[in-house]
């Protein structure tokens, strides 16, 4: 089954028109000695019925959030996804279209992405957002490169240790062959020490990267950090949780120059880590240094409002080696999901999701810390996630919870670059995240499992 049409008589007609007598003649372009002289070694072909049976068998050997109680966090969350999101984005006109280079054939996509940009600008409190990047982690790396272009500084980049360690690792990988020094500021008390931060930055520093609420769920002193950055002429990159701004001040209000986010929480399923949604927004004076696609409004030949791919001269297909990034996709379908999700929620819905997540997380933290052998690693204010320290070891906590049908984690020991925390602390600690999807009963079940 290869989804083909052509019958053998049609094939003969086509070959005749081409002027060759066999398909093999067309393959003569490939030198014979380079052609594979055997069939590929692959498992046998399956019909749809067999394939579905096979996939169901594979799926049955995985633990999914739907059949369990998911308190897992660390950058991906079990927020509720309304059914409209799947229905609308499941339309073939969206998901089987390509990049909207031909504006006339792509107004649906273009308008939806323009709306996405508008919604993200509003969520971030900044002027401009692009049509999305690969994901939150690579988004942080792209934002760092952008800050280097904006400031013309390549000496140093300062990243808070409380930023998602996988994003930090993406930054260090992206900059491995640049002369730029990547300094990671340990955050032993759960958040950035502003005085200590000042000693890390100098006049060659392009940016400070923070996450708020941070990887440990804690809140950062963003305004003070922004002041430190700006005093030295560096930019502040703020990685944020798009759900949190239902309750918390937005990056733009706190002094961020560039905001980035993992947008998975906005209607994107967990699906083992991807595809997710990279969000990037900035002040308008930085727009020409932005990576990724931008949709603009214009008018057509008849004066009618329409949308098109604007500012393409920044991109790789025109600027090639001088492009703002090599990226030539966006996460179109996920940006669409986020647009539908935010349209459904509206301001009140977003506030309620944020508030419910926050309240339930605090209830869970309060109950858990009363258990003997359990405590919170950090004591500052947090949003929907916190670090639980379990004296019998994080893996034992995960096993006990799992036995009760509840999933928590990840363990901090999973992240090699959190090595500024003592090994024994990492071995005992794990993240617990609570979304609006969880109930009091489910929280109590977790508490009972660990007690």
């Amino acid at each position: 089954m290869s989804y083909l049409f052509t019958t053998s008589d049609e094939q003969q007609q086509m070959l005749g028109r081409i002027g060759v007598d066999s398909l093999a003649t067309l393959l003569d372009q490939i030198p014979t000695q380079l052609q594979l002289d055997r069939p590929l070694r692959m498992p046998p072909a399956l019909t749809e019925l067999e394939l579905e049976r096979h996939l169901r068998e594979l799926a049955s050997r995985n633990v999914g959030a739907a059949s369990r109680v998911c308190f897992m966090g660390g950058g991906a969350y079990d927020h509720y996804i309304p059914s409209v999101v799947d229905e609308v984005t499941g339309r073939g006109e969206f998901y089987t279209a390509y990049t909207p280079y031909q504006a006339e054939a792509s107004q649906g996509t273009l308008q939806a992405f323009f709306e996405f940009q508008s919604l993200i600008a509003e969520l971030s409190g900044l002027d401009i957002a692009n049509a999305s990047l690969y994901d939150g982690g690579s988004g942080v790396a792209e934002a760092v490169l952008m800050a280097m272009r904006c400031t013309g500084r390549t000496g140093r980049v300062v990243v808070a240790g409380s930023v998602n360690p996988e994003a930090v690792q993406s930054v260090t990988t992206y900059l491995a062959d640049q002369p730029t020094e990547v300094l990671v500021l340990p955050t032993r008390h759960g958040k950035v020490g502003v005085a200590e931060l000042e000693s890390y930055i100098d006049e060659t520093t392009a940016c400070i990267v923070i996450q708020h609420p941070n990887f440990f769920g804690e809140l950062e002193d963003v305004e003070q950090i922004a002041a430190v950055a700006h005093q030295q002429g560096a930019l502040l990159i703020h990685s944020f949780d798009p759900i949190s701004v239902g309750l918390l001040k937005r990056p733009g209000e706190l002094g961020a120059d560039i905001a980035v986010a993992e947008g998975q929480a906005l209607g994107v399923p967990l699906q083992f880590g991807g595809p997710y949604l990279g969000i990037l927004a900035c002040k308008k004076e930085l727009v020409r240094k932005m990576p990724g696609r931008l949709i603009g409004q214009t008018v057509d030949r008849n004066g009618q409002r329409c949308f098109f791919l604007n500012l393409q001269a920044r991109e790789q297909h025109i600027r090639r080696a001088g492009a703002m990034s090599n990226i030539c996709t966006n996460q179109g379908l996920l940006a669409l999901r986020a647009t539908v999700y935010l349209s459904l929620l509206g301001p009140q819905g977003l506030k309620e999701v944020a508030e419910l997540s926050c309240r339930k997380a605090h209830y869970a933290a309060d109950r858990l810390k009363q258990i003997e052998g359990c405590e919170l690693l950090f004591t500052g204010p947090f949003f929907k996630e916190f670090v639980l320290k379990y004296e019998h070891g994080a893996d034992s906590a995960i096993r006990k919870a799992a036995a009760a049908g509840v999933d928590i984690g990840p363990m901090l020991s999973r992240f090699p670059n959190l090595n500024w925390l003592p090994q024994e602390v990492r071995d005992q600690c794990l993240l617990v995240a609570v979304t609006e999807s969880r109930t009091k009963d489910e929280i109590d079940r977790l508490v009972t499992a660990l007690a």
Partner: protein
Amino acid sequence: MRNRQATQLLSELSHAGRRGAELPPSDVPEWPLEDLLPSEAMAAAPPRLPELAEPDVVRHFVNLSTLNMSVDTHFYPLGSCTMKYNPKRHERLSRLPGIVDVHPHQTAGNIQGLLELLYEMQEMLAEISGLPAVSLQPAAGAHGELTALFVAAAYFRDKGESRTKVIFPASAHGTNPASAAMAGFDCVELKGRSDGFVDIEELKQHLDDKTAVFMVTNPNTLGLFEREIAEIAKVVHDVGGLVYIDGANMNAIMGITRPGDFGGDMMHYNVHKTFTGPHGAGGPGSGPICVRDFLADYLPAPIVRQRDTGSDEKRFELATPSKTIGRVRSFFGNVGILVRGYCYLRTLGAAGVREAAEQAILNANYLKALLADVLPSAHGEHCLHEFVASADGLAKERGITAMDIAKRLLDYGFHPPTVYFPLVVPHAMMFEPTETESKATLDAFSDAIHKIVTEDADLLHTAPHSTPVSRPEEVNATRKPVLTWAACNKE
């Protein structure tokens, strides 16, 4: 039929007090929020999102969808993009519980089925490429290029060699130089031969002990197989450089010839193209890379390994290669797209994979033959999966541009080909029909082109005439970009 009311901007459809989602009341103690969060961190009000009822939202987006052309609705011969049919079974199967709802930090013991799938995917990609070590992490083809260049840089650093140059032909996708620059390399562009192939003598002039990587798309962006690829690879290897195969055009050669067998050391796939992702209106993609064994230790982490259990029981684990470059994104990779690619390969099997490539070649050559009298191709008697024709003659004789033809095709119900790429062909029109189109569709498309080239030039300059919009104004809109609805209101 276009519903103009429903396709206003969401901000214009908004009506204070409407809502499209309701949430259950809180069932935990109602502690005052002020006790939970510091007041200085709290927003005065939530963001000003539009306020809509659920039916508003559905009607808006469904109507927007009807303004698109798509593979499900139209022939979409966009060159270099492989717009093939996207099987519906993939959508159902990638949404199965146990796949769609798996948390990325779930421990390996709890996801053996998924790891088995991903491991098999690694194995199949290795087999199709002829390169044994695979990373599924990159999120798209360009991301794969970048990742592979990081791998190359780490490899040379480890060997104590300072290699600064990446070389590529002028016909390369823009992503090649952009990726090379991002990875910190200097770019060297080759002019190439007049027949569209790499000029080995020109390449040799740039090869030295500073050469890190030669990047080449094969078949190239003209749809032609670099016949001297083995010799090209040899001269690059002779100076200690690596050969990178841009796998954008794998749909032409899968099952017929393998990058690892014709001299490639590294490559990426575009799962959303070759293995029918789908394209998702511009993404998400998935860009796994395959490399030779001596580069395996540098791949980003994690990769899936099969553990030796000493019994028949299969056990899989997530492993970190010993000299890993680190990672290029959060989490494992674009698993949702990889699952679809897996379903595709399991449906086709070895024979089906080769058959798909052969049929893609047949369709491209058939369309090339049909169009030869009006849109000749400067390069090659035959092509592989795509071909580049030139509207240069029409431009000179009748003042009709490639863009005019492209726009007019929309009126005939066809998505246009890629135009003005590659840059090495004047008035380039790049057609990639793919294997999942019938002879009847190709005939109808050719008929449309033949009609268009006889039409009045003015009619073409102002085309399209039947689409929801026509020829957006770009110059003023680029000078003063309006990128959000908040900015529209300011204008």
